């Protein structure tokens, strides 16, 4: 394989891997913060136990999320040094802001939260988990602003002499319409992961507890916990639909090739249907005007693609361009630079199916929410085996939806690493092909070495992660609240006692 392909595979693998853990951290941190707030407000010890149970799971996940994130910070320069030179002036800013404004906060305050149950006052300790939840969310915002610049460069000008994009408006970069559309979508998707995780685990425990004869525990512990997750699913489900629709419209405006590829729409049309199943050769022979001739749309919803793209189901204003139109337009615009054979449309098969899988997997969480809200209505619990099974089946679904969504977004960007902004606010000189962004001094065997190293280590860690989550889930919510989280407020930061204290009290938590 060429160095370019290896570098792309490596970025894909490490990023997808990172994004298994990230949405769970963002979603679960927020839900744990909510659980702890309920405890703080009601003083009901059940909520303390629930908080600590899910808090444990959060920590297992956080650790692996952090270490896989470190790699990302280095990878741009290691494998994509030419890209880094081209966009560093713009791209580096949100990255550095993310570190300064979010990473410091989350890592410091998570340490305080983990070890601070006894050392901090209840109020300050609660603030710590909220700081973690907010900063993980903020970090998503900054990194999405960076990513959105690659999808739709704004706030920058082309510097001919230095051959790079230069920042000229940080406000424009941070309020890029692409960012404003992507951020709520990604955050609600993270809540969907967190909500499904909490609801799935609590739901599964409801059935298990009832079967063990612990109906009381199912009703008083796991049912309320499940509701926190279920509410999160409902809120995020509505949010995802709204933000997804908005994002689709933004995308059709900014990257028509990406969305047309997702619909396997080769020829532009009015009242374009949304296809649920397409047969034929979706193998990505892009740019060939006849490529789509043998595609058969088996199941489609009339006019829906037009609605997603333009807001109208039919009529002139519902016209959406096909991939062939886009290819032609781009070839006319950039043919001088890249030659006549350059293909401007992403792989159709991946675009088409990742888009559908994203929606399909998200629906599984919705199904869990509907089933659970009905089964658990008005104080009920259940011992139904199918409910237990549904809970387990639903657990991986939102993770897969997230991965599919990102595969769609990122592979739909090809062949660009910085997509030319074809809108009125764009500078067409700010564009870079993926092939031109890769490091020139790094040999293919070196990239292969790191690809293999990361894949093996990540693979092994994934097994450990699953094993530890399983272990902690199976332990369940403890029957009694932990001995000692301070009932009375102590002074902040108390604990500077001398070494010579007569009786040393063991730490409330120790590694």
């Amino acid at each position, binding site marked *: 394989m060429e160095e370019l392909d290896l570098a792309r595979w490596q970025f894909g693998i490490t990023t997808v891997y990172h994004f298994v853990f990230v949405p769970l951290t963002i979603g679960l941190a927020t839900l744990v913060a909510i659980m702890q707030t309920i405890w703080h407000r009601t003083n009901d010890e059940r909520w303390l136990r629930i908080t600590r149970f899910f808090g444990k799971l959060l920590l297992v996940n956080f650790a692996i999320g952090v270490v896989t994130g470190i790699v990302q910070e280095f990878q741009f320069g290691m494998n994509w040094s030419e890209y880094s030179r081209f966009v560093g002036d713009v791209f580096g800013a949100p990255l550095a802001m993310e570190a300064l404004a979010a990473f410091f906060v989350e890592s410091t305050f998570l340490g305080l939260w983990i070890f601070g149950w006894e050392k901090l006052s209840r109020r300050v300790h609660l603030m710590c988990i909220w700081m973690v939840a907010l900063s993980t969310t903020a970090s998503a915002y900054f990194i999405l602003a960076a990513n959105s610049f690659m999808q739709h460069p704004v706030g920058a000008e082309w510097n001919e002499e230095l051959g790079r994009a230069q*920042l000229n408006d940080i406000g424009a970069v941070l309020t890029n319409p692409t960012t404003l559309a992507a951020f709520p979508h990604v955050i609600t998707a993270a809540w969907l992961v967190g909500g499904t995780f909490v609801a799935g685990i609590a739901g599964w425990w409801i059935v298990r507890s009832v079967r063990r004869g612990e109906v009381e525990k199912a009703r008083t512990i796991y049912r309320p916990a499940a509701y926190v997750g279920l509410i999160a699913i409902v809120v995020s489900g509505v949010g995802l639909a709204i933000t997804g629709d908005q994002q689709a419209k933004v995308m059709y405006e900014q990257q028509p090739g990406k969305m047309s590829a997702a619909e396997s729409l080769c020829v532009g049309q009015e009242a374009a249907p949304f296809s649920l199943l397409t047969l034929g050769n979706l193998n990505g022979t892009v740019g060939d005007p006849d490529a789509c001739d043998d595609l058969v749309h088996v199941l489609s919803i009339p006019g829906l693609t037009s609605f997603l793209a333009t807001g109208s189901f039919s009529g002139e204003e519902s016209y959406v361009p096909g991939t062939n139109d886009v290819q032609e337009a781009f070839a006319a615009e950039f043919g001088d630079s890249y030659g006549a054979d350059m293909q401007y449309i992403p792989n159709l098969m991946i675009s088409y199916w990742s888009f559908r899988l994203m929606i399909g997997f998200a629906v599984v969480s919705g199904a869990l929410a509907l089933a659970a809200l009905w089964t658990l209505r008005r104080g009920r619990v259940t011992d139904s085996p199918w409910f237990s099974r549904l809970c387990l089946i639903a657990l991986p679904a939102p993770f897969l939806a997230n991965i599919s969504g990102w595969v769609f977004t990122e592979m739909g960007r090809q062949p660009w690493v910085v997509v030319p902004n074809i809108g009125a606010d764009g500078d067409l000189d700010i564009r870079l092909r993926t092939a031109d962004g890769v490091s020139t001094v790094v040999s293919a065997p070196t990239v292969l070495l790191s690809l293999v190293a990361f894949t093996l280590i990540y693979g092994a860690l994934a097994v450990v992660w699953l094993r530890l989550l399983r272990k902690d889930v199976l332990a369940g919510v403890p029957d009694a609240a932990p001995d000692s989280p301070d009932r009375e407020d102590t002074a902040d930061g108390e604990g500077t006692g001398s070494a010579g204290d007569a009786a040393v009290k063991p730490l409330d938590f120790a590694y």
Partner: protein
Amino acid sequence: MDLATLWFLLIAVLWTGYLVLEGFDFGVGMLMRPLAKDNTDRRLAINTIGPIWDGNEVWLITAIGATFAAFPHWYATLLSGFYVPLLLILVALILRGVSFEYRHKVDTPRWREGWDRCIEIGSWVPAFLWGVIFANFVRGVEIDGDMQYVGGLLAIFDPFALLGGAVTLSLFLTHGAVFLALKTAGEYQQRAVALAARLAVPSAVVTGVWVLWAQLAHSRNAWTWAVVAVVAAALVGVVAATRARREGWAFTSNAVAIGLLVVLVFGSIFPAVMPGTDPATSLTIANASASPYSLMVMSWVALFLVPVVLLYQGWTFKVFSKRLSRESIPPQPSELAAAAAGGEQAPTAP
């Protein structure tokens, strides 16, 4: 002072923060096994850095992110050119990071043994390689006309750089021992104090030799002689303070020595950010930096956020400033079970 120079200084500050703070994390990781008599001792060591190591590591992420933002060419040349050592560091940091959280999750010796090894790899490897990389900065590297590093892998590991690796390694070992002496109580602390005194001398010698070598052979600025003098004084201070069992002073002196080492590295390459063996191809503050607008934006951000970070990280250190002893470490279930079994057996054994 122009903004590019300011960012050169700020990146030096970020590296100082990283190496001073992670320095003792690495030291604790390297000394976790040698200083321990049993699992409780190991956990004692890990828990001295438990709440803070992650925040300490973010200084690295920020230094790298700031380099990307302020000097894109430096970022691109450094990371693509030093690919293999950075890959090793990344692998080490991955293993170390999960170890702290995962080590205590399963209560078997075999499980702990595996993660202990990861903590050791994750501490020894970066402690050595960061020194190698910084020594390369000081010495200068082969860069071509397109700002690409073309020196190859072997040139990264020449004697000067290897000695530079020994410098960070030995300084961090001492730093870790002093930190443990400062953060623990009881018999364990006595061992840490004794070890710190033993480690201080070789680390002072190795560092002294390298610092002189760097100054005589490679420094591009005469004023760095002043830094050399203060580094030497700080190293003497570490030796004296560890002998006198004044761990607070020893820690401060060693932190100063590490911090000034960064000052020496950055001071001796200024105004280059990555000096070329042929000065004409050096990456400098002028030719590697981002645009003035970008630097201005980042300056405002840093101006507001860095003090805040220092404030809450300082507060965290205060919250967890209490010394730990073996009694602070709650026993794991297996130890409780063993104690219970031992208690029952006691009457039958004469």
